[in-house]
């Protein structure tokens, strides 16, 4: 990954919604289809209802150079002393055909710490957490 942007996007009241549904595998959170279908970064962010702002406390780790664009390891951590109450992390890869790769809903008591691997069509990544 040649360059990357880190954007935290404000944070909201998702925590209470998640806590209200104990024992459910799937909460009532609806898949943001329009955001997944979006073909441009700003379109995807708009569909997610996010206005990007840069925040301290978001730690985004990815290799400087990915050996294989089909398997790019990423790690998202949020320093909760700097940016508390993050309940959602969305991963967007700017140059992909559909930039939105994943949306993680994080329950209270779960660290904001996500490791996964994504496909990266080109060398730009961005990230949005709230």
């Amino acid at each position, binding site marked *: 990954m040649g360059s990357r942007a880190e954007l935290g996007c404000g944070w909201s009241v998702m925590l209470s919604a*998640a806590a209200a*549904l*104990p*024992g*459910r*595998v*799937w*909460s009532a*959170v609806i*898949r*943001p289809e329009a955001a*997944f279908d979006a073909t441009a970064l700003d379109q995807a962010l708009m569909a997610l209802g996010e206005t990007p702002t840069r925040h301290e406390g978001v730690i985004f780790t990815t290799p400087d150079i990915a050996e294989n664009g*089909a*398997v*790019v*390891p990423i*790690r998202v951590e949020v320093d909760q002393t700097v940016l508390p109450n993050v309940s959602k992390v969305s991963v967007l*890869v700017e140059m*992909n*055909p*559909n930039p*939105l*790769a*994943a*949306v*993680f*809903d*994080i*329950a209270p*008591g*779960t*660290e904001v*710490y*996500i*490791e*996964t*691997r*994504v*496909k990266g069509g080109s060398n730009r990544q961005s990230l949005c957490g709230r």
Partner: protein
Amino acid sequence: MAGRIKIRAQKKGELTEVKALMRHPMETGMRKDQAGESIPAHFITEVAVLHGDQTVMQAHWGAAVSANPFLGVRFQGGQAGDAVRVVWTDNQGGTGEGETTIR
């Protein structure tokens, strides 16, 4: 088609670290096979990590998550011996599930 999940949950101080490896092609629907036919989209759309009956994390995924997806999360409050499950469903109605105990 129920996919198997390799899953490990390990207690590290206050936190339980879960690592899961799912077997899934994660086809985008944009690739073609050797005959030039489009390979239909086939990817995991929803994933959840459960500690007992509590969901600690759930995610919506798109086709941009890599084939044979890896997922790592950390949560608080786990005790050795507790059950941890990872479940997924895909866009073709397939499901997968893996369970382990925290050690």
